């Protein structure tokens, strides 16, 4: 009897488990899958919630490095919207014919991140080339900031020297901030907006505009989206006054802006 009950309980659990197992199909038509650069997580989570309340459409994010996302959509041919950290990967997606509607969202400004108190006394890009500085950068094939940091250093003519100081490369910008905050590196190049909220652990050092490469965060609808109307509405919402207000709160400069107009 006892054994029979155990068997019944197990069968019930199995059936219940299968019934409640989350389904990833979007057959209902009232949900969106957004491929979003991992660095944009904080504001986009909030914008997603606002959009869900307003339009009754469930928004699912796939957060990863921008290059990583590109290869995911290439393999799966699924999803509705792509929002990478910079236009580089977006242009590749456009070349591949994945994008049929696009909008600029905000500026992404690279800064130097150092642990609180700046133990290695880094004050400029050139200091990243100082022998003994432990520099951590993003993987150029995986995330937008990795690609951009290499370009900034090349533009400054110190890429070769800094390369010798690179202790590691990561797949997302979020990991860079984490490793700097636990003092496993003396400096990194990250998006300025990522340092909002972690001021007690990481300090930002501005890069002079003439040395810097400021990028625009784009958002685009995927050609293989099965829910184009809602995807378009989502993009319009992100770039609406409401969406822009959320982005400003998280330290982004919404597009367009006079300061970076040139």
């Amino acid at each position, binding site marked *: 009897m006892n054994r029979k009950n155990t068997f019944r309980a197990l069968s019930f659990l199995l059936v219940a488990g299968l019934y409640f197992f989350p389904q990833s199909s979007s057959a209902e038509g009232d949900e969106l899958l957004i491929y979003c650069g991992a660095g944009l997580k904080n504001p986009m989570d909030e914008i997603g919630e606002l959009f869900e309340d307003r339009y009754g459409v469930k928004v699912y994010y796939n957060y990863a490095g921008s290059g990583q996302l590109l*290869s995911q959509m290439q*393999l799966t041919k699924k999803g509705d919207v792509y929002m990478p950290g910079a236009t580089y990967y977006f242009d590749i997606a456009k070349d591949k014919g994945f994008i049929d509607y696009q909008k600029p969202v905000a500026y992404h400004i690279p800064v130097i991140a150092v642990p609180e108190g700046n133990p290695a006394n880094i004050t400029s890009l050139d200091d990243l080339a100082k022998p003994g500085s432990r520099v951590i950068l993003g*993987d150029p094939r*995986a995330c937008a900031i990795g690609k951009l940091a290499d370009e900034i250093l090349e533009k400054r003519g110190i890429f070769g020297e800094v390369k010798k100081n*690179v202790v*590691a*490369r*990561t797949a997302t910008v979020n990991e860079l901030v984490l490793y700097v905050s636990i003092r496993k590196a003396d400096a990194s190049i990250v998006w300025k907006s990522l340092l909002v909220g972690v001021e007690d652990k990481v300090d930002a050092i501005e890069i002079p505009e003439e040395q810097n490469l400021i990028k625009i965060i784009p958002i685009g609808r995927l050609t293989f989206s099965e829910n184009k109307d809602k995807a378009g509405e989502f993009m319009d919402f992100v770039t609406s006054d409401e969406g822009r207000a959320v982005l400003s709160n998280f330290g982004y400069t919404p597009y367009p802006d006079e300061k970076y107009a040139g």
Partner: protein
Amino acid sequence: MKSTRAKLKGSKFEALTVFLTLLLVAFILAVLVCIISYTTPQDFLQSITSHEIQFAIKLSLLTSIISTALVIIIGIPIAYSLARYNIPLKSLINTLVDLPLALPPLVAGVGLLLFFTTPLGEALEDVGLRFVFSPLGIVLAQFLVNAPFTIRVLRSTFENIDSRYEYVAQTLGSSPMRAFLRVSLPMSKGGILAGSVITWSSAMGEFGAVLMLAGATRLRTETLPISIYLNMLCGDLDMAIAASSVLIFISFLSLFIFEKYSGGHAY
């Protein structure tokens, strides 16, 4: 008797169990075939001979051999003490030694990373023992994840050897250490070899703890599993498949050696 047997043989129950077994075998084969048959031989050859995969193979071999050697050298005395001696709180110690076995390697890796942010960890780094973002970290991560399993295998090997052999050796004038070295150790050769091979294979495939502690830096801490991860996330399937195939080959090889030398013991 004979009729009962015949009945059992043709029963629906037998058909069901055999069917399930065949289904699982087919599933496993399908998964392996999917990996191996994805690329063309030319692409495969090009990937496997690329600088990146060659680096990953060498780094994986180097780190896994060192970590396996460390696990075995340190594991033998530990396993012996757990098998033979009455240590206070033995069951608690046994549980703690086994704990990383049940712990996801990712969690072990996060713990290791945080350990190196403590003053003790920082002191180790100051004297030049750099584990974070370094191949040394790969060895340490493999060691922590694999040591409990290996110690379990070795412990059960020693437990299977009658301690009377050692007593006899000792009554004939051997010291406990000599008795261990000359009697128990040679008798447990098969178990030690089998344990080493499985430990090595598992070290070759260790991913989670390595990713957390040593990071995934191309051509620096890029072992074969890290190479699969990096190339999958950048969309280079050919490279990921080349690295996967090497790991599949190693799994077959080590399983073959394990079966041969473990003498049919189940651990």
